[in-house]
């Protein structure tokens, strides 16, 4: 899953949704709302032939297909059929926006804006490769392979987002995390020494400047956290 969505902040829900399907098939989990075979076919038709040249919001999906079958999955919404042997159709929404003005991880969660943006949809049956469809918004989270597959049809990608995707490319050297950590610790110690020397020498520093310098290491540490999330081994 990490390889499929290297730019997603985390893929915990996506990974566990596979086991949710297994538990469903064995009858241990009962969907709170099971779709009729006809309604299920409509959802399936949407993910096969629906318009994925545009972005979709959670509210639009809910308007079309109603509430998801399980209320307890957070940003992965599943639709189950009455016949549980059919599997699940899953809609993965983006919890975090990957782009920020300073290049770090987004501080504003999309859910705080009132609506999730659809990243992709998939099924728990068949090959993931064949059943994964990204929205233009979701493409920025996709692995190059998935992106290449999705590029077979015309898509619209915001250049700024594409640039950010390159910044967070999974082709980060393995030692990157260590390097960034050492940079941060060096910068922090330099900052500490500088503030001590300034305090002792009596230099006058304006408050905004000092604040600005104090904030910078925090932004760097955020970036390390994001990078490390996909440097680690996939499931």
């Amino acid at each position, binding site marked *: *899953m*990490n*390889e*499929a969505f290297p730019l997603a902040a*985390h893929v*915990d*829900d996506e*990974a*566990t*949704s*596979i*086991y*949710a399907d*297994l*538990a469903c*098939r*064995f009858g*241990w*989990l009962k969907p709170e709302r099971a779709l009729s075979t006809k309604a299920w076919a409509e959802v399936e038709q949407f993910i096969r032939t629906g318009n994925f040249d545009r972005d979709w919001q959670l509210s639009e999906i809910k308007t079309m297909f109603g509430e998801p079958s*399980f209320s*307890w*999955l*957070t940003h992965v919404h599943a639709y189950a059929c009455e016949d549980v042997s059919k599997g699940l159709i899953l809609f993965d929404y983006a919890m975090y926006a990957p782009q920020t003005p300073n290049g770090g991880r987004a501080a504003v969660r999309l859910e705080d804006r009132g609506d999730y943006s659809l990243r992709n949809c998939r099924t*728990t*049956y*068949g*090959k*993931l*490769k064949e059943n994964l469809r990204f929205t233009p918004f979701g493409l920025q989270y996709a*692995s190059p*392979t*998935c992106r290449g597959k999705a590029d077979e049809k015309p898509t619209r990608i915001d250049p700024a987002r594409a640039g950010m995707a390159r910044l967070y490319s999974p082709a980060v050297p393995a030692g990157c995390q260590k390097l960034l950590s050492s940079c941060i610790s060096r910068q922090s110690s330099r900052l500490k020494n500088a503030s001590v020397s300034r305090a002792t020498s009596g230099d006058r520093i304006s408050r905004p400047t000092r604040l600005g310098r104090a904030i910078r290491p925090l932004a760097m540490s955020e970036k390390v956290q994001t990078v490390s999330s996909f440097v*680690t*081994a*996939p*499931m």
Partner: protein
Amino acid sequence: MRSSEEVHEHLVSMLKSLFARPGMWGYETGREIITLHILRELAFIDSREDALEDAVMDLRAGAYQAPALFGGG
């Protein structure tokens, strides 16, 4: 001593909790071990261990393996 129905119910509630907040159940491999453990316990109560093992093998062999995304299988 609790009955098997009660144990079953308890395991299902654990499973729901795991799916609702997976981040609280460890990271990747650890969480996978716990999930499979709960599923295997449930299968044991239902006497469906073989069916579950087959399903898990199918899962590992094909559909959701990451290498499948890269043409490996």
